[in-house]
């Protein structure tokens, strides 16, 4: 597999390019990683999102680096495939260099695992892994923001329902209902959403 790299160098390329296989069943995340690697000048990036026929793909692609998600429950199977096919002579997690335990933890924290062909210089793989780590982080940030937005939307809906209940039972306006909620929350040192949730639940009980 190192021959691939050498032949590229002989072809006169400025920097010999590595083929990178990204295995991730999360298509969105996989494409984010792929884009990041391409932006960094890696042209041979192959994304695989399922295990079917993976063995054959690895044999055809002959990747220099394989990046996988640590949460992938098929990780043990991948290690086995690497051993059986000898596609990766001896699977080595990128973070095998124990002197760099800081970067190991960063990689594991970010949920990245990379396998490199034995003998491939780690300086060449490290930027790839760094890229994958930052992309994993970017993806989890996106996810978190999405989650926060969802929560906010749900909270707004609950407050709207609470306002509706107050308006109906007290015959007051929306503004007045909101002020009443806010005042109650302040008096009880609670959040408006908590008071609203309590009201919605209590009113649900009374209706039944």
């Amino acid at each position, binding site marked *: 597999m190192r021959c691939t790299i050498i032949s590229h160098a002989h072809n006169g390329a400025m920097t010999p390019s590595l083929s990178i296989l990204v295995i991730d069943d999360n298509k969105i995340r996989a494409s984010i990683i792929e884009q990041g690697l391409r932006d960094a000048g890696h042209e041979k990036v192959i994304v695989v999102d399922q295990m079917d026929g993976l063995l054959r793909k690895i044999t055809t692609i002959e990747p220099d680096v394989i990046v996988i998600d*640590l949460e*992938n429950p*098929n990780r*043990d*199977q991948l*290690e086995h495939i690497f051993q059986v096919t000898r596609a990766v002579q001896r699977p080595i997690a990128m973070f095998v260099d124990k002197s760099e335990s800081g970067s*190991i*933890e960063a990689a*594991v924290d970010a949920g990245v695992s990379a396998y490199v062909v034995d003998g491939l210089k780690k300086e060449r793989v490290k930027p790839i892994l760094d890229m994958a780590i930052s992309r994993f982080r970017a993806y989890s940030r996106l996810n978190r923001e999405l989650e926060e937005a969802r929560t906010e939307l749900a909270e707004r809906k609950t407050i709207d329902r609470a306002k509706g209940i107050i308006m109906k039972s007290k015959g007051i306006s929306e503004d007045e209902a909101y002020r009443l909620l806010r005042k109650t929350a302040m008096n009880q040192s609670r959040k408006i959403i908590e008071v609203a949730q309590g009201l919605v639940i209590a009113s649900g009980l009374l209706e039944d």
Partner: protein
Amino acid sequence: MSTRSSDTVIAGYIPLLDSALLVAAARLGFAEEEGIDLQLVRETSWANIRDRISVGHFDVVHMLGPMPIAASLNITSLAVPMRVPMALGLGGNAITVSCAIWDQMSAADAGEEGDPASTGAALAQVIAERKTAGGDPLRFGVVHPFSGHAYELRYWLAAAGIDPDADVEITVLPPPLMPDALAVGQIDGYCVGEPWNTAAVHAGTGRIATFKEAIWPASPEKVLGVTESWAERNPDRLDRLVRSLVRSAEWCGNKENAPQLAALLASAEFLDCPANLCLPALTDQMRLSKAGPALDIPFMTFSGPLAHCPRLEHGLWFYSQMVRWGQAGFNAADLDIVRDTFSSAIYRRACGVGEQSALRQPQPARFFDQTPFDPDAIEAYVEAFDLKV
């Protein structure tokens, strides 16, 4: 990582019945009694378990018996020297085949009660007929290359004259996916821990052909794994954890507690499966087929010193299988590494057990085919097998 108090222990585990000791210790107060704040982290693969204990995310782990040896021998990724303070139980695995294969095995006189010799011989006949008919080789799933599952399956196959590397295909799958993979025909059989055999039996898609307890009686399955450096730095914390797990094991091993333990393990936080799937193994009432009777046979053992105290010969047998199947080259110097890894010293220190009583075993390791295992002559033991790599 935030700084941990001297009483906190972070344990990585895989959702399986034999994570019971850790789960019960954390949830039912056994760890607390020893002043240990046991925090459990569920993992999705054994590779993650291994990597995360190597880099220090976990203090201790629920681990396949052969894995700490592979780590100490540096024949796996991210290898660091490891220790086995105690085993987390005996038995608990089974070999399940699809109903179609079982029908053929049954026609070839396979025993109904999990007898490894007759089921193996029947499978050999099925495989020979399949070969003559030009069929594809059967595919079997195991959970990891360095696992009791892989070695038990290979031992059973090889004892029947089936070459595990030439006559069948062995692949690796995560335990919870095995029953589905069998149902859709992706594999023809598998060796896995409970409840994933019972799951296929219940679904009517599989039949248990034989089981670990019948192949290698009273043998260790999962162990508590810890890095050598953590064990050396935290002897007191480790001893307290071991003692709490021993007490947890007494509770888990009491059959009266089986319904409560099954409910706890089956919850969404742990195995996330129906509780009735957990009960047969916990009560030693395994059903090998959907219509068949519950067999009143020992299947899985949590409690008792024999279930916990690491035994050198067990570690050495795992090593012999690594050599037999080409995962490791035999090296006399490696024997000391295996002995250190599977030493009973930590267990004896934690439980205040003397060497003599720990070593007084009822009988040496024995296997269903009656081939004697001499831990002092591993090279000759491996050499004597017809089938090996």
